[in-house]
């Protein structure tokens, strides 16, 4: 078990990186607690896998140090770190039986055969692989194969953390749920640190205690699923998490009123006072779920034209036009839907202000 610290990590695949855009990882400074379940969420190409490989030692970062329990492991190769990694596609030793696959990491480390047998049996039990132990690994289904990849990490008693690189990509949807459930179970049973890389928000939000959102080589927000939803620190988090994503409107701030193409929207006092110090392009952000929609004019509401209504089953998505800006609102099933004109209201506590993509806050 280990606490993993990433100390001022930056990595570039180029030999002589010139500016920021040459870096796959820009500036990562973070700590992963022992026994935590973390999800690393971000779009393809944002540097998730690079970061994972830095942690596991497959890649040495251009700058910064990696520490396990305070011990510097930056220059240690993967086999010398107490880490296991599960890849996107199941990696198996085709010619070996399931038993030998699971025993492989132990045998390579010169473990006694009696101990090997004991460990393999234990792990097979946890992963429900016992009936397959004598089968050749190559003939099994994708989910069983992925469990074997995971098992090769679990057999080592010294393993501190398991890293998953989009492990459910090749698994059938109905098995995905089962396997994810299994992962949580393993996590609770063995109290290992798990780091789970994915681009699927549902996977990340259901799996992890802490979600780290990555965007263009940076960790833009770290928090619980709820924090990410309610208080996105970066415009990207707003877009990426939630369905549909957050609404953004370019604005200027005047006192505690934000002006969007002539329409005034009230901000809360704290945001308003901070807004004056903020530099860069200002944008107003609100979750479709929190945007209030009324059929008639109420206090503080603004008229907008209804464009479309999409029925998504348990809720409806209303698209409105507010003086040239498109906004989406998520309405509960039972709420009245305006036909042509909607009166929308921005609840001040839910209305966020972003400067150059970053949340304006303390």
């Amino acid at each position: 078990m280990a606490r993993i610290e990433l100390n001022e990590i930056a990595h570039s695949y180029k030999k002589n990186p010139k500016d920021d855009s040459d870096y796959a990882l820009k500036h990562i400074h973070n700590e992963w607690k022992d026994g935590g379940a973390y999800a690393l969420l971000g779009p393809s190409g944002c540097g998730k896998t690079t970061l994972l490989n830095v942690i596991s030692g497959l890649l040495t970062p251009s700058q910064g140090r990696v520490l396990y329990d305070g011990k510097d492991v930056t220059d240690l190769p993967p086999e010398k770190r107490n880490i296991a990694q599960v890849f996107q596609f199941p990696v198996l030793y085709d010619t070996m039986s399931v038993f030998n696959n699971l025993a492989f990491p132990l045998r390579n480390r010169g473990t006694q055969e009696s101990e090997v047998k004991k460990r393999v049996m234990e792990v097979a039990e946890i992963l429900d692989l016992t009936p397959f132990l004598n089968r050749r690994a190559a003939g099994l289904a994708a989910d069983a194969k992925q469990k074997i990849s995971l098992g090769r990490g679990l057999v080592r008693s010294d393993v501190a953390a398991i890293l998953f690189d989009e492990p459910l990509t090749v698994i059938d949807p109905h098995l995905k749920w089962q396997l994810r459930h299994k992962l949580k179970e393993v996590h609770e049973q063995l109290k290992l640190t798990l780091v789970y890389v994915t681009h699927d928000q549902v996977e990340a939000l259901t799996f992890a205690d802490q979600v780290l959102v990555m965007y263009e080589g940076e960790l833009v927000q770290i928090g619980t699923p709820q924090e990410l939803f309610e208080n996105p620190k970066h415009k990207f988090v707003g877009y990426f998490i939630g369905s549909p994503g957050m609404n953004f409107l370019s604005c200027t701030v005047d006192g505690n009123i934000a002006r969007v193409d002539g329409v005034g929207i009230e901000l809360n006092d704290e945001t308003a006072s901070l807004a004056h110090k903020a530099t860069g392009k200002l944008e107003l952000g609100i979750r479709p779920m929190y945007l209030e929609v009324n059929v008639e004019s109420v206090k503080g509401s603004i008229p907008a034209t209804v464009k479309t209504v999409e029925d998504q089953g348990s809720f409806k998505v209303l698209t409105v036009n507010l003086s040239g800006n498109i906004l989406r609102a998520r309405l509960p099933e039972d709420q009245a839907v305006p036909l042509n004109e909607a009166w929308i209201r921005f609840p001040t506590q839910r209305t966020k202000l972003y400067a150059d993509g970053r949340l304006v806050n303390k």
Partner: protein
Amino acid sequence: MEKWENNKAWFLVLPAFIIVAFSAFIPLMTVVNYSIQDIFGPGQSVFVGTEWFKEMLGNHRLHDALWRQFLFSGLVLLIEIPLGIMIALAMPTRGWGVSACLVTLALPLVIPWNVIGTIWIIFTRPDIGLFGVGINSLDLLEVPFDHTAKPLYAWITLLAMEVWHWTPLVALLAYAGLRAIPEAYYQAAKIDGASSWATFFYIQLPKMRGVLTIAVLLRWMDSFLIYAEPFALTGGGPGNTTTFLSIYLVKLATMQFDLGPAAAFSLIYFVIILLFCFAFYQALLNVGRGEKA
């Protein structure tokens, strides 16, 4: 659902069938025809049944040529396959080195067979050849090197030529097989603490199985059919020590004009190659699948 009875589609196979008939089946049948007759001249032939087959199967010159052939093809596989794999493992995986290696490797493959023979005659000549003069100037050998002087020298020259000519093919196939292994396998092996031997044995070799099957089959067939190189280099000599099956066959058919025995011999030859290819294919397909199912 019941199957729709409509066999008209078979007509679409007809063109392929006709081409195969003319390219393979009919020529083969002519050979069968020759093998059961004694032909004296145009229009003069006698049906002899299986006599030629019996004669050929008991022919000790054929036996000698056959054992020589097995030895040669066996040595070729034993040298070329491991050597090809080693070259492929040593080749660079990125940068300009890749194209340089590929082009250099492919060079021997584009030279015609009989030209190869000529090149090696000159290369090994004891008076002007680089290799011949070079090795003799070291003064290590009791009998100075000359591929016509001793059967061993003739064999060494032939094997060296064959290995030089065809190992690149094995290396290219093995290289293609190696390139197709996803990076994650190597990464997983690293994390599992596998030695480079274990990585080779449990990842690279199993993943190369497909291409190595093709390499073994091609090299077996080609070396079993070898003709032009020994014909150009040694002509089957010294004595009969490099008279392989095809050289003997050509002697029989075109020099002695024994068409009947030669045809029977051809068919036996054909069956041997077919049997071996089948055996190799089955063996390689099932290798490593031996563990309990």
